[in-house]
């Protein structure tokens, strides 16, 4: 398992992206599109944690771990801020005109579009968001 822990600050996002790139480059069969999708999903999820989860708090850590399990990659993001339920967030209305669309919400939409499974749990030990990215889903 690969793991990195950084402060819940926007300045940590490039480090997470770089880390995903490095971890993926060490495993064969992971193309650039998958790496990009993972980076985008982690970027959006961490942005939510930073701007909402730790809002009003002295920001703590975000722990990002990647596990390469043959047919899929499991990404886990752990934080200790306020619980944030990404799954309950409605998808943005892509049919609406620009002026009618609320701001935000697209980051989560991209996560839903690019990941195959999402699980969110919260307990006294922290909040845990897990993505599954199947490797074959990127083909074709």
């Amino acid at each position: 398992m690969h793991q990195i822990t950084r402060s819940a600050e926007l300045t940590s996002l490039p480090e997470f992206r770089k880390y995903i790139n490095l971890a993926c480059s060490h495993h064969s069969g992971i193309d650039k599109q998958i790496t990009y999708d993972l980076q985008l999903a982690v970027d959006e999820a961490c942005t939510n944690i930073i701007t909402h989860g730790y809002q009003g708090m002295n920001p703590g850590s975000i722990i990002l771990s990647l596990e390469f399990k043959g047919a899929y990659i499991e990404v886990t993001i752990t934080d200790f801020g306020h619980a944030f339920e990404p799954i309950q967030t409605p998808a943005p209305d892509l049919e609406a005109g620009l002026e009618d669309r609320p701001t935000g919400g697209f980051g989560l939409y991209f996560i839903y579009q690019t990941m195959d499974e999402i699980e969110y749990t919260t307990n006294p030990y922290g909040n845990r968001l897990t993505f599954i990215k199947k490797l074959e889903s990127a083909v074709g």
Partner: protein
Amino acid sequence: MFRNLQLKSTPDRIEPVTDQLTSSWLEQYSEAPILLSQINLLPENIKKRVYRILIPPELLARFQIDPVSWKGAGGGLHVRLDARAGSNSVRLMAFSDDDRMDEFFHLEISDNAEGSLEIKMLQLNDPQSPRFGTVINREVDQDVTGKAGRNLEEEQRAMEAGLAPGQIRDGLGALKITLNQFETFLAATGHRAYFLEPQFYSAAWLFEKRGFAYVRGHKLMDNIHAEFQHGGRLHQALDSSTSFRKPDAWRFVRGRAWAIHDGILEAISEKWEDLRMVKQVGRKAGVETFPGAEY
């Protein structure tokens, strides 16, 4: 709309709360966390059996203390356990002498409101080393960290002897085995993580090295490191205005810790407060807010 997407939002299972541990409850909920308040209701000798796990046997052996009976070479009891029925906390102290004056191990843990465990205090002192009277306010019963009242002369002596704030003696170099032992206890009692609030910068750094992450305060630790660099406000505030603010203090963990204990964070409009750390049992977070630090 969502290609291939499966969504699950699974709250961790909450086990039924029970005050009294029974064999049937333990059998039925094999992974449910057991609280200290539940253990404390057990008969004394059972409690002792359970809490024995908290002290590393090799640490007791170092002081010729039997890890089972807790008796020393002279036959006296060298370990004291406070785990009253009705309480949600445990205090365990080990002494190197029969008179129980020289404490070398002090651990206080408690349940928190969320049903997980907190380390409230952990001190590992070398009883052979000189003792410093850095604590002057004995009125505040819980304060043995030296923050309620400062004895500046003793603090300076302690600093010059190489101690960090909050230490009254040299350490034992046993933090790693003590935390490993504690995690064995946590795994046995069904806890997946535990928490503590570091009272000093040096303590936070030590716990980082042992695999802790921050519930609160990671950004503050990053800021402190940045501001101690050349040109930073904390670096500039190391102006020798007190013994604890020497210009080279930024280079070392202890130097920074003494300066912070002395209130230098005022220079960045911050205080050392509200930090909280978490350790996942069996896992290291890999936090390093002072890269390449010298202690």
